[in-house]
């Protein structure tokens, strides 16, 4: 282990989807960027998610955050094309909208009310409720269960292969001059004369500016400035159904066919700390719901199940913030970092370099939790 610290310009900690998206966005700014990523047992959100680029039907109480997802979705097609070109890798993606199936009249009308509210706060909303027969026309190869009354439809949604996206970013980073080091950061130490020393598994590193994008581990890494970062593990558990012919040209939330033909079932949110156990009764309840939506699934094989910990800020909104007393450290945490990847790449670089946040994200700093910036 070396003991002399190596000097770096900007270090980004975390090579999940947030870290790579931010690093790629910084690459053409003439600065030297180093990305640190070390595998941990539980920080695997970027490797366990569904890959939905999802805008609809959320955050009526946080209109700016709702708008941010729509903005990111609009930036995605050009970004995914560019990443494919730079990395030379294909990224399966479709931008044909998204559907949320409804069971029963009550669920349909409460979903309709929510969308009305969202339309009012956002003024413009590219979606609507559709009837069962309209749903059947959108997904003609699926026979829906008798309880399905219709769906929420939004044309801004989409789905991307999340592992292909992560991989393309990583390969692209090697082509645009970003250095990636595989190492685990244990602790961040602010230095008296400015700058930061990172104590890592492979020795100390020093940098002028630091970006913390390590998902749940941000809590530990930021504790020199904030002892209790308001970010929690939100456990999801999913079932994977065997490969089927492609029958879902438009992704459905909760029961989503992947590009490889498998179907991911899952929608649970649980706050149980860093527990990643798959609980049979929990995944079974998800499977039962999926069969009510799409009965034929009941006859198909389950081939896998897994869990993942979402990175959930306390009020469910993204955090883009300097750390209190540390203008040289920027922290990024969001629970929809796939959806927001295009926003992170295209519109956050100025902020990471010391500038202002984009208008829509101005209220997403740590100030809202009572921390001074």
């Amino acid at each position: 282990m070396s003991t002399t610290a190596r000097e770096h310009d900007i270090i980004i900690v975390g090579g999940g989807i947030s870290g790579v998206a931010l690093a790629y966005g910084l690459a053409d700014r003439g600065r030297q960027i180093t990305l640190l990523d070390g595998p941990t047992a539980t920080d695997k959100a970027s490797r366990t998610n569904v890959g939905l680029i999802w805008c609809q039907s959320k955050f009526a109480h946080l209109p700016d955050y709702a708008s941010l997802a729509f903005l990111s979705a609009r930036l995605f097609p050009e970004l995914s094309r560019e990443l494919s070109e730079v990395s030379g890798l294909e990224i399966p993606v479709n931008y044909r909208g998204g559907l949320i199936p409804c069971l029963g009249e009550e669920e349909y009308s409460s979903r309709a009310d929510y969308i009305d509210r969202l339309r009012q706060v956002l003024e413009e909303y590219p979606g609507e409720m559709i009837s069962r027969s309209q749903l059947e026309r959108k997904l003609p190869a699926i026979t829906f269960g008798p309880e399905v009354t219709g769906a929420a439809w939004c044309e801004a949604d989409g789905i991307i292969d999340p592992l292909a996206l992560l991989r393309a970013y990583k390969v692209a980073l090697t082509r645009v001059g970003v250095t990636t080091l595989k190492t685990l950061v244990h602790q961040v130490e602010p230095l008296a004369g400015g700058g930061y020393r990172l104590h890592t598994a492979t020795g100390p590193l020093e940098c002028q500016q630091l970006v913390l994008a390590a998902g749940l581990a941000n809590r530990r890494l930021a504790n020199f400035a904030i002892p209790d970062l308001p970010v929690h593990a939100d456990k999801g558990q999913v079932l994977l159904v065997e490969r089927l012919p492609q029958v879902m040209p438009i992704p459905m939330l909760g029961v989503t066919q992947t590009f490889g033909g498998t179907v991911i079932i899952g929608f649970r949110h649980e706050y149980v700390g860093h527990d990643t156990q798959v609980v049979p009764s929990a995944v079974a309840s998800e499977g039962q719901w999926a069969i009510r939506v799409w009965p034929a699934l009941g006859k198909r094989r389950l081939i896998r199940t897994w869990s993942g910990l979402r990175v959930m800020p306390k009020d469910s909104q993204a955090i883009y913030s300097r750390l209190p007393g540390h203008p040289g450290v920027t922290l990024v945490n969001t629970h929809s970092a796939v959806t927001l990847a295009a926003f992170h790449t295209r519109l956050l670089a100025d902020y990471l370099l010391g500038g202002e946040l984009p208008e829509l994200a101005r209220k997403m700093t740590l100030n809202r939790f009572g921390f001074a910036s």
Partner: protein
Amino acid sequence: MSTPLTTTTVRILFEGQELEVPAGISVAAAVAGYAHPGHTCKHPVDGSGRAPFCFMGVCFECLMEINGLPDVQSCLVTVEEGMQVRRQPLPESIKL
């Protein structure tokens, strides 16, 4: 000098073709090693031919129809005398 191996064998049918294979091996090993089938199922999305790959229950590339039951991971089933094994039925015939 080593003692010659005496192997008991069983007979299975793959697509109607009789194979004499060592007892105790998996259906996937029997078909791959003794029938040279090319493929044992087709990828439901792109239609490409697939065959047993990991031989340990992980990849699901070895699905075959065994004794009339489709969708069986053939690497996890041991050969039995008279077993009827077929390629996995084409996914087009599945009603979704």
